[in-house]
């Protein structure tokens, strides 16, 4: 089950470097028209690999509240 409630992408800051997609271990995000896009939110484990290594503050993961 998805661990992220939402993946926010700040498109105007995303420079399309693909670092987030390369280091995402689950394939939850992909490149679309030279910007990152959510491919499958269900797959996201909220591991934060993408958010920590994005040089442009352009991807933010919102974790689901613990049930």
């Amino acid at each position, binding site marked *: 089950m998805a661990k992220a409630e939402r993946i926010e992408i700040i498109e105007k800051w995303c420079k399309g470097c693909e670092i987030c997609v*390369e280091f995402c271990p689950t394939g939850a995000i992909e490149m679309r028209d030279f910007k990152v896009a959510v491919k499958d939110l269900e797959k996201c484990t909220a591991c934060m690999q993408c958010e920590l*290594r994005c*040089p442009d503050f352009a991807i*933010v993961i919102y974790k689901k509240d613990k049930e």
Partner: protein
Amino acid sequence: MSYDYAKYLRKGKLPHIWCAGCTYGIILKSLIRAIDGIGWAKDDIALVSGIGCASRLPGYVDFNTLHTTHGRSIGFATGVKLANPKLNVIALGGDGDMTAIGGNHFIHACRRNIDLTIFVFNNNIYGMTGAQYSPTTPKGAWATTSPYGMAENTFEITSLAIGSGASFVARTTAYHVAHCEKMMKEAFQHKGTSVVEIINACPTGFGRKNKFKTPASMLTWMKDSAVNIERAKNMSPEELVGKYTIGVLHKVDKPEYIETYDTTVGLKK
């Protein structure tokens, strides 16, 4: 959200000027988390840079910031620290800024052991001016000024710092985000000259012409080349070929310059 950077960023300054995949943005984030982690107030920090892509960093953060002349960040930082020793003074710059044109300031700050934190953003090239080779461009690598391959030997920045007298010397990389934050914090907390070499990637100037097709492949290069200093102790020289160590490489207690100065001239007993 693992961390909210907004509190430390100057409003309206993003997107920053760095190229797609330039790892300086990753360092900016590690720096903010490190400063937040040790709890320094924004007004108690002076962040000083020279000239180059790395040196654009202070423009994005809400501290006392100084963007100075090429190679002179440490000179200005020394002045700031002497005038107001209560400030936490950080000097940063690229490998060219710090070890080519600014090399003299670098070694003499280390020699004095003045209480500064110095971050050298080593991306192996002069990024800003179009990929001329720097003192850390690896042997054989392409640069606009070494079209046949770099023929010179490189500076080993951390050895240079240790040999010059810095009392805290560490190395980390842009890839190792948590480690980078930790090395920065330890450097901040050390009294005396603290030098942290941070391995960075310039995909535009260095990567493209040196067989790195993507920015991510340069981060993978860091991941594969860096060996923690503790692990390296149990590895043979053969196993360490083509690798570099990361972690605290040198840490000693020794008199700090401003304190020594004050007692020498009689300002303090």
